[in-house]
């Protein structure tokens, strides 16, 4: 009966080798394409480094959500029901992450957002988490920077009415700006456009007529932000432009060219302002694989993947419910973008980085810590 033991071993190995599926839904096409593709660079790198958990291989399945709200919920449903994903990563763009997290929550599979910052992505959804900060903080960061560092007294906001991210961030910025300037009328105007628009001359002519110190553009799509600023300069406008984390895309610089010089935006990560030992390791391996510096989205994708794997490890099983419990109790997880502790809503509390466009590059300006 000596052969029984090796046989048992072999069968157990075969059974154990059944892969664990982690599903990813990101925009590979459409107005958010660059965001999704940058995120995937980080996810792929992390997958290359950690390919196994609980002795089973990890299979990564990516579904393109096409920057579309309906496609996003379909993508998550497909990942869970067809690909049998036990955890979901994604997505860039709150507008697509909100319907996605809705589906994941309903189907009882945990989702970890990389970069969606709107509060509604996780609010009231016990299965939804994220590794980035949220917009009530991001809006305050930019308002604070405008008032304290740039000495701005008045602002105009140009928002994308079709994007949850844009409307949300616009709202939090206005709130904070009014509070910080101690003037209820310091926001001189809010004017809307819609995702997909290419002509912003009307909105800009309106903004210019108010003559504000700064113009805040929480655009959901980097390309549109670049076009807005470009057209503003063509109209002879000299104001300082401020924005959110979506601006960080090579396309923003390519399309915007000289027009976007001197524009400030908040984001999640900068290679010059890292806070964890893992960040240095990440930057080194990222440069080796892609031959360029990592973006904030790549870093967040990297962290999201590693956090999911860590949660599966801590849960000791590939059961979605157990993974969710493990994720909810995440404390001081060491990521490339900082130490991640998830609060009762599943949101990370982290520093924000402010960057500026200088000589056609994104340059580090300062780091803002969340106040207690």
């Amino acid at each position, binding site marked *: 009966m000596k052969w029984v033991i090796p046989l048992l071993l072999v069968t157990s190995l075969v059974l154990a080798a059944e892969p664990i599926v982690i599903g990813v839904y990101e925009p*590979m*096409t*459409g*107005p958010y*394409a*660059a965001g999704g*593709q940058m995120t995937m660079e980080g996810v792929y790198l992390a997958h290359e480094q950690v390919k196994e958990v609980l002795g089973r291989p990890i299979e990564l399945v990516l579904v393109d959500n096409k920057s579309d709200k309906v496609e996003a919920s379909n993508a998550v449903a497909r990942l869970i029901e067809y690909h049998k994903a036990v955890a979901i990563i994604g997505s860039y763009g709150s507008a697509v992450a909100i319907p996605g997290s809705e589906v994941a929550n309903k189907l009882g599979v945990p989702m970890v957002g990389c970069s969606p910052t709107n509060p509604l992505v996780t609010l009231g959804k016990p299965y939804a988490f994220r590794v980035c900060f949220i917009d009530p903080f991001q809006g305050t960061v930019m308002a604070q920077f405008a008032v304290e560092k740039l000495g701005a007294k008045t602002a105009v906001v140009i928002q994308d*009415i079709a994007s949850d991210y844009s409307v949300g961030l616009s709202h939090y910025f206005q709130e904070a700006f009014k509070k910080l300037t101690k003037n209820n009328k310091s926001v001189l*105007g809010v*004017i*809307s*456009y*819609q995702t*997909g*628009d*290419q*002509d912003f*001359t*009307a*909105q800009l*002519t*309106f903004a210019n*007529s108010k003559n504000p110190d700064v113009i805040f553009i929480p655009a959901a799509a980097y*390309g549109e932000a*670049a*076009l807005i600023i*470009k057209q503003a300069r*063509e*109209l*002879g406008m000299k104001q300082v432009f401020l924005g959110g984390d979506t601006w960080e895309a090579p*396309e923003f610089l*390519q*399309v915007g*060219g000289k027009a976007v010089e001197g524009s400030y935006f908040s984001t999640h990560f900068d290679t010059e302002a890292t806070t964890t030992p893992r960040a240095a390791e990440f930057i080194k391996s990222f440069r080796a694989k892609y031959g360029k510096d990592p973006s904030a989205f790549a870093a967040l994708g990297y962290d999201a993947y590693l956090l999911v794997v860590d949660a599966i490890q801590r849960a000791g099983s590939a059961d979605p419910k157990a993974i969710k419990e493990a994720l909810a109790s995440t404390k001081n997880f060491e990521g490339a973008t900082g130490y991640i502790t998830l609060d009762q809503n599943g949101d990370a509390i982290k520093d924000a980085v402010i960057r500026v466009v200088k000589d056609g590059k994104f340059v580090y300006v300062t780091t803002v810590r969340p106040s207690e």
Partner: protein
Amino acid sequence: MTWTLLLQHLANGVALGFVFGLVAIGYTLVYGVVKLVNFAHGDIFMMASFFVYYGIVLFSFPWWFSFVCAIFLTALLGISIEKVAYKPLRDAPRISSLCSAIGMSFLLENFATVVFGGRQKPFYQPQILSKTLDIGGVRIQLVTVVTILVSVAALLFLNYLVYRTRMGLAMRALAHDFDTARLMGINVDRTITFTFAVGSSLAAISAIFWALRYPQIWPFMGVFPGWRAFTAAIIGGIGSIKGAMTGGFLIGMISIMLVAFLPDLAGYRDAFIFMMLVLVLLFKPTGLFGEA
């Protein structure tokens, strides 16, 4: 509102209106002759901008040569689309070629996504055309002025083509009565091929001027201008060339003036545009310049 501000809004409206109008005349020309709503028009428009892009980036052509090549290639593309997707359905019910057009639109979009990639690419802007003119505080892009000139030239050319040439006569005959025209010895296939070539060249020209003004291109860039142009063509009376130009102009003006005068309602812009469409169709079902 000051005068300069009002004039600036007017200038913005004119600029946008002519861009929409230029896209719309290509749309309407094909419908006018073949009675086919070519839903792929917006995607032919997109392909044209990629032809220019690759002409400059891959083959380092000078920009003007790249423009010419793109117009030529787009005309060829239009002809081949007609041969593959519409010609076999010429005697089928009209709904079949409409479906075929929608299919062609999806095919081109997804083909472009696979081949060119889903991310936005910057469109080359020649130095000469990226100047801004400042007329008494009102700022206009030089590209806009050129766009207006090109639109007017295109209108005059089409007018000449349709009303003064033998080919135009054949086109009008086809538009009027397909079967009788065929019986009268008009070469239907050649006329339709020619119409598609002209329509697609117009798509290419409008794509070039669109991309010069809004310099980012991607596989789905044709969807928005495509629908806008379609709406413009219907408002103007689909099939009517001056109607398409007027419709495009109206849509551009409304888009700008709504933001200018009712900034709080700026987010509902599309509601206003389509309300205008409904009103036009209610009171004049054939559109502003359409014939019954």
